[in-house]
């Protein structure tokens, strides 16, 4: 396999709340290959959005900070960058697509101008050229009549078109990586499918890598190549989509898969995982998942399992992973 475009090692984010430090993202490590779509899955509060924000060093509050780890982007650790260099990364190398396009687009500046603004900031081009490129990007994300829509404002777009516009803004400077934070959660199912198609098309035509954050395993199985499952700020399972969703070895992954309403079984009771996800400041000792885990023993409540290889390209952090083959069952 070639050199990954982004290599995250031991990324940790802490929050300072009233004098105490809480770890919110705990030693997260993963690689992102060129042209790959990596799914980051978990419940709300599992630290998946925080992980993505940490990568562009724009955390939601001043109380939050990256406390350790490295993120090697094209051979350089961006956590050592100063603010000026970081600005080139944001928008230049990593484009962000947010969940709610209506609130994340400037309501009083036209869509085209917002794209052109980014282009002009990152690349030394003339006003006219920036405009031309912006129109071209609008065309690429499938916005009809881009010349005219250049001057349109966010509120004049429909929900799906607005998300396309948001993607166009993220694509403005031809980034290597797109981070899409639940980009389809606020959309209708049909529009959702169109946006997913657009994202896979962009991957195919531009070779852009995508970190796709979602809580929807259905979407993951549709578009992702690999999946990282997060729980309580840690990655608990990481591997190819087929392995993780088809034969997930972490009890939490298995629980998530079981919670998906299965097709072709109407009337069947939707299953849930017992208990609540842990809250900040109330993180259980040992394995974060042990209070809710069906396979728990004393070992789990004292020692936190590390992520270990359990198969080709498949890692899991569990003392008692679910066996899927006789060989695994024997260990």
């Amino acid at each position, binding site marked *: 396999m070639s050199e990954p475009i982004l290599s995250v090692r031991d990324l940790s984010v802490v929050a300072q709340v009233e004098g105490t430090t809480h770890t919110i993202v705990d030693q997260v490590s993963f690689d992102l290959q060129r042209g790959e779509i990596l799914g980051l899955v978990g419940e709300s509060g599992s630290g998946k959005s925080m992980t993505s924000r940490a990568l562009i060093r724009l955390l939601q509050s001043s109380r939050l900070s990256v406390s350790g780890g490295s993120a090697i982007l094209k051979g350089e650790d961006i956590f050592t960058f100063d603010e000026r260099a970081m600005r080139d*990364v944001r*928008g*230049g190398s990593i484009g*962000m697509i947010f969940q709610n396009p209506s609130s994340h*687009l400037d309501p*009083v500046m036209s869509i085209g101008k917002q794209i052109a*603004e980014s282009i002009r*900031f990152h690349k030394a081009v003339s006003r006219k050229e920036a405009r031309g490129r912006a129109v071209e990007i609008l065309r690429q994300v499938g916005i009809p009549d881009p010349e005219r829509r250049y001057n349109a404002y966010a509120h004049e777009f429909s929900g799906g078109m607005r998300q396309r516009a948001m993607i166009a803004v993220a694509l403005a400077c031809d980034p290597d990586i797109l981070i899409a934070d639940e980009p389809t959660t606020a959309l209708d199912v049909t529009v959702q499918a169109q946006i997913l198609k657009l994202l896979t098309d962009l991957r195919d035509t531009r070779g852009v890598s995508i970190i796709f954050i979602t809580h929807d395993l259905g979407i993951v199985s549709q578009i992702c190549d690999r999946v990282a499952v997060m729980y309580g700020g840690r990655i608990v399972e990481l591997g190819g989509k087929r392995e993780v969703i088809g034969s997930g070895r972490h009890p939490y992954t298995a629980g998530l898969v079981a919670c998906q309403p299965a097709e072709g079984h109407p009337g069947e009771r939707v299953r849930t995982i017992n208990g609540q996800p842990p809250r900040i400041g109330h993180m259980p000792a040992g394995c974060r998942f042990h209070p809710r885990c069906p396979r728990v023993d004393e070992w789990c409540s004292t020692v936190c399992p590390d992520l270990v290889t359990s198969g080709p390209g498949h890692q899991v952090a569990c003392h008692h992973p679910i066996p899927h083959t006789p060989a695994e069952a024997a260990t």
Partner: protein
Amino acid sequence: MNRYRFVLFRPFQLLPVLVGISIITFVLIRSIPGDPVRVLLGPRSTPGAIERIRDQFGLNEPIWMQYFYFVKNLFQGEMGRSILYKVDVLKLIATRIEPTAVLVTGAVCLALLIAIPLAAIAARNRGSAADHIIRLVSTAGLGFPAFWLGIMLIIVFSVQLDLFPVSGYGRTFVDKAHHMVLPCLTAALALSAVLTRNLRASLLAELNSDQATAARARGLPEGQVFWRHVMPNSLVPTINLLAINIGWLISGTVVLESVFAIPGMGQLLVRGIFTRDYMVVQGVAMCFALATVLVNFLADILTVAADPRVKL
């Protein structure tokens, strides 16, 4: 652009307000104790003259007919004559508009020049010493009586430092400008207290908004995020605040024209009240009301221009 279509229809929607304004001024003048004709004629009134004028002004007719004549006269640009100045009220007002208009627009411009930087400094350095000082000063500023502030500025800048004239308006452009610095500054300082407080609050909200985060995520430096995205969004409510405060600002200029002896409409009004020159009071009150309505209309147009989401 069809978003501006309201410009055509708004005047018709304002009709009830205009009728209301005319009724209030009509009722106010009729409510003045004593016979208006006697007031109009002053001490020279004789029973014969009074009866003649009563007929001439239709004062012997029922009240609703009198109102009708009043409105008819208004449409003919007839607002009566000033007893004191012995000229047509409308002509009198025309000569007094300039100083008042200069004072109001000057105050608004200066207030924005003061409030925008102060609010920007306070919001961008939230919790800093500068923020606390600006908050404290603007809170205190809310309670500064404009007339007193004017006198204080006169004491410092005119009496002690001799930089500006104590009062009056002047003849040439430069002379007028020189006279209007202190009055404009006074009104602007009073207005900027309200503006700074409100602008700071909306800037703070906008700085934490999703769209500002998204702008930062595009790699824009904080300065560009602030001036190109945060500030334009925060200025929209400020425009409305300015429009709401225009009546208050005009009230302020009435008093300030007395403080600085500026020959504007406010001074005309105050003098009209004390000399019982009621036609002048009526005319000036109506003009001020009209100006307020017009400014609000203008503010609506500005809001539509500044915020593409607004539809009126």
